[in-house]
């Protein structure tokens, strides 16, 4: 039954990816932690057209992972054309000048490979995993869609329907599925983060083929991408293949990265959600925080652990275990390129009042703000962070993602190997300080889910 409870918490397929991404950025300083962590060794270089290439060797199995990180997400969209970046995540599996419609995926599957992609608010990420002798094929395919993609009505029409189904499936037909969308639009009012990658169905319908083509030519260019080749290859071969397939793609125009900052929030915002399919009442809190890389981000991540990581964490222990008020309580710690959000989602137990849940949540947050955390709790969250970061560093796919993101955001992939220092630099006082600074009532957004009476 654990699985059942967990899936209540699976908020949306976009959100968990974003959560995962936050965590997928581990590293430890070799000097301090050589017994705990093996630093990641990789090569990197720029191609003349601006494509940044990262080569990460791992010879444990005969496979190669090819990844392309495009620095374009939903925040690069116009507010009346939301959903574009995610729509491209679908179009990119359609046809190119040299790959027929339907063959893109088939050619990877035919060799037992896997392909996937995800879209966040700041980026899109394309993934191909193939047996190592097919590395050149995977690179050829990725290069084809970087420059020779067909953006035409055949692909657009089918994917319009599919994307609408995805929206219904993830956000409209699952209990609390709308949560991430509601949260973002409550916490952000003016910035490009007020909408999420799935976008509004109507805009994809309204957009013309020309608009999709323009979006493609602006954003899917080598100077806006990071190519990662990871796995079982020889460096010279990988470099030659990258050269063969990507060197002739022309550099694109500079990307417009303008961002409308969110003004400070001065009073609490409330949103009530009434959906027929809600089985148990739920409440979510959300606060704006800080962008990726800000030093408070690390303290906020640790604060989330103090509150909600494991059965001994404060909220889980009190609300779920001792008082049986909630079926689940789940953190949200979202760090974005230009801003951030922190919060939680608590689903009440059957027959329990949401007001009681809220009273205890508020009390626990206040307690933490006024008294801080114990030495033992502090050591615990340090251990948890270390273990999670090392675990992710053992996974080739996580490492590939983290390296490309570090490069795209900070032009410094090596930052990955020192990320742990930034967590270990957080003090007990920092955790209390960020709780006080960000988790205020006037800057809070509250989303409640009510249960229809006929259940």
């Amino acid at each position, binding site marked *: 039954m*654990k699985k059942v409870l967990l899936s209540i918490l699976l908020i949306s397929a976009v959100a968990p990816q974003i959560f995962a991404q936050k965590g997928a950025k581990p590293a430890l300083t070799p000097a301090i932690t050589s017994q705990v*962590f093996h630093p990641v060794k990789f090569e990197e270089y720029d191609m003349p057209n601006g494509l940044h290439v990262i080569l990460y060797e791992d010879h444990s199995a*005969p496979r190669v992972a090819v990844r392309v990180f495009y620095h374009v997400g939903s925040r690069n969209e116009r507010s009346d054309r939301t959903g574009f970046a995610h729509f491209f995540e679908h179009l990119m599996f359609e046809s190119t000048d*040299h790959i027929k419609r339907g063959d893109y995926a088939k050619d990877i599957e035919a060799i037992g490979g896997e392909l996937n992609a995800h879209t966040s608010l700041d980026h899109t990420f394309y993934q191909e995993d193939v047996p190592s002798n097919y590395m050149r094929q995977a690179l050829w395919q990725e290069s084809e869609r970087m420059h020779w993609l067909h953006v035409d009505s055949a692909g657009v029409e089918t994917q319009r329907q599919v994307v609408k*189904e995805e929206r*219904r499936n993830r956000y*409209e037909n699952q209990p609390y599925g709308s949560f991430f969308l509601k949260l973002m639009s409550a916490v952000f009012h003016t910035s490009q983060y007020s909408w999420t990658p799935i976008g509004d169905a109507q805009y994809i319908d309204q957009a013309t083929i020309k608009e999709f083509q323009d979006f493609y030519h602006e954003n899917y260019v080598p100077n806006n991408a990071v190519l990662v080749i990871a796995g079982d290859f020889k460096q010279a071969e990988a470099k030659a293949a990258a050269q063969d397939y990507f060197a002739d793609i022309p550099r694109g125009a500079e990307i417009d990265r303008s961002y409308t900052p969110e003004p400070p929030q001065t009073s609490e915002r409330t949103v009530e959600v009434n959906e027929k399919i809600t089985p148990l009442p739920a409440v979510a809190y959300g606060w704006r925080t800080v962008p990726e890389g800000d030093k408070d981000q690390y303290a906020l991540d640790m604060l989330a652990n103090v509150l909600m990581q494991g059965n001994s964490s404060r909220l889980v222990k009190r609300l*779920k275990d001792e008082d049986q008020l909630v079926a689940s309580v789940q953190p949200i710690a979202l760090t974005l390129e230009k801003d951030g959000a922190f919060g939680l989602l608590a689903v009440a137990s059957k027959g329990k009042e949401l007001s009681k849940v809220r009273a205890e949540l508020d009390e626990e947050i206040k307690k933490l703000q006024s008294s801080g955390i114990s030495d033992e709790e502090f050591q615990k969250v340090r251990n948890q962070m270390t273990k999670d970061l090392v675990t992710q560093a053992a996974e080739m796919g996580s490492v590939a993602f983290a390296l490309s993101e570090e490069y795209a955001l900070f032009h410094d992939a090596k930052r990955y190997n020192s990320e742990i220092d930034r967590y270990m630099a957080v003090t007990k006082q920092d955790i209390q300080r960020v709780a006080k600074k960000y988790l205020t009532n006037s800057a809070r957004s509250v989303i409640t889910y009510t249960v229809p009476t006929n259940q």
Partner: protein
Amino acid sequence: MKNLMKKFLSLAIVALMCFSAINSNAQVDRSKKPEPGPLPKSAVPPFQEITLKNGLRIVIVEDHTQPLVYFRTLVLSGNAQDAGSIGAAEAVTDLLEKGTTTMNADDIAKKLDFFGASLGASSTVDDINVSIGCLKRDMDKVLPIYADVIKNPIFPATELEKYKSEQISALQAARQRPGELGRKMGRKMTYDVHPYGNIATDSTVKALTVEVLKTWHGQHFCAKNSIIAVVGDITESEIKPVLEKQFGSWKSGMLYQPMYPVVEPKQGLTISLVDRPGSKQSTVRLQHLGVAVTSPDFDRASLVMSIFAGNGVIGFANRLFQNIREKHGYTYTPGGSLTKSVDRGVMVAVAEVRNSVTDSALDQMLLEYRRLSTEAISDNELNFAKGLIAGKFMMDLADRQNTAGLVLSTLEYGLPKDYYSTYPERVSKFTSAELQDVAKRVFPPNDISVIVVGDASQILPMLQKFGKVNVYDLDLKPKKDVAVHISPTTSVVADVINKMYAGLNRSEYEKVKNRKVEGTVTLELGGGPQTLPFEEITAAPNKKYQKLDLGAPMIIEMRIDGTNVYEYQGMRGGPADPTTAHHELGQSAFDEELHVTDQGYNVTLEGVTLVPAGAAYILDVMKPGGYHEKWYVDTTSGYITRKDLIEKEGTETQDYSDFRVVDGTPYPFKVEIHGAGDQTVEIKSIKNNTSIDDTLFMKKPDSKN
């Protein structure tokens, strides 16, 4: 962990490829897909298997990527061993960390959380998995706690009570999850008394006791019934003494051997609809009984499944994805799998589609399902599938936890030692004819359970095109007579009346001037229901004779001559009382349904609802003489499937079913009447336009009051 993909154990040796000859300035021909390099050679990644003195088997797989260690204990008993206490195995699993002989739940949580080591525990029908991972530096502190929760849990009563209320909340939440509803309904449909079909409910949860859990744990958690896998930054010599210390003294016990009742596949097409009001999508599920993992058909059936629906992985190339997503855009993530289990699992294909295409999507899914056994798989498709499986197998070598999973799976199912290492080679030899032969057994074209979770008010009429639909509520209990409001395709009463006329085949019906019907009536006469012979003769415009035979001299008759109603018991009787007469005269017009537009009936359309026969338009009918009725006209067939007779004394409902065509016109051969008393009329024969004795409609000349 039955659904672990088969993995191939090997070590990569990439043959040297010479790329130095490539001039980086030379243009490649990008119109051609690059040729692959030489096939990497594979070998089994090293693993060790040891057995402790108490019979505990241990599998060790080294992985030195990072200084981490994972432990996974597989107990070879699962939910199917719940016997009389459904949910016992799961409760045991979930409560392991809620108290042992030496630590309470708080201590355990605190200690494990301190090292960032959370216990993973889950149960399937066949087994229980308990796992934990930690930094190697913390292993000596984490492992004793892990061993303690496996060996010495005490299931404290207070923790069990908390668990029960959590489970009840979880069941409540599950009532709204379409996937969960479909899975449960599927289990009900596929397995009768077989324990794979067990479903937890509030009452099974409430019935669990500490004693039951202790007994279950005592019987199944023991060295001989368990296997431990260790994966990570360790060597055999390092880990063996540690495990001996923690598990060497664990009681031996017995390897559990399940005995299951024989389960047979369901025959024919069945359609079950779980009504989920407000659903934005329909979850359409095809399900059929699968085969046990040890069956000689299993590997071939798995290959067929991967061609059909991807078999557990989201694929782009499988038929279902290409058809209902890429060609039609009905769905986002179609998929399917053939589950792997000790006894027969299930074949499932599932897609979540928007409400308006529920029927089209089901149509295509059935088409793809039926093609598996009725058409041969082409060589192209077969080679594609073989390439996919072989490549995937090699790729999965990357994860050493998968390696451990495969070794565990071989041991659990008693598969040959080389089962996985020879898997791609065996698959490469499968022929199209063999696959079709297996498909006929495992995917029989006409035997399939369709389970749909969705909003009945919107999709029921669509599903009825495929056959009879059984509707269930969110508790999976049969749902009859529940009024579900459907947005009608017309708001024009004339359209519905014309639909009714068309359904009745009005021009043929009008040729009928009298009708003789014979059958039985089943009714309650005190002392249980009785079935009695029954006869009815009716003639235009409004004459009627009915006879019910309770055995001479108890012959009950009713006669209507057009204006008067007479009732008789044998020779006794005469004019009916005014209330009865009024009621019966209202029902005496011959085939009145044909004449609503020309006999002064005042008809309005009220909407659409669900009656036992399916979705129907509701016509509100005011008849001359002050009779008020509601007629329910089936949205698909145009037949009248129900009438409500609304009278001062109450409403009588008549449900019509078993429509058969007589002389070109449909007639209900079964009528269920619910009013003052319940009656069921079943017709044996109908004769139209025979010569009839007109005196039968008249007053009996020699009767006595």
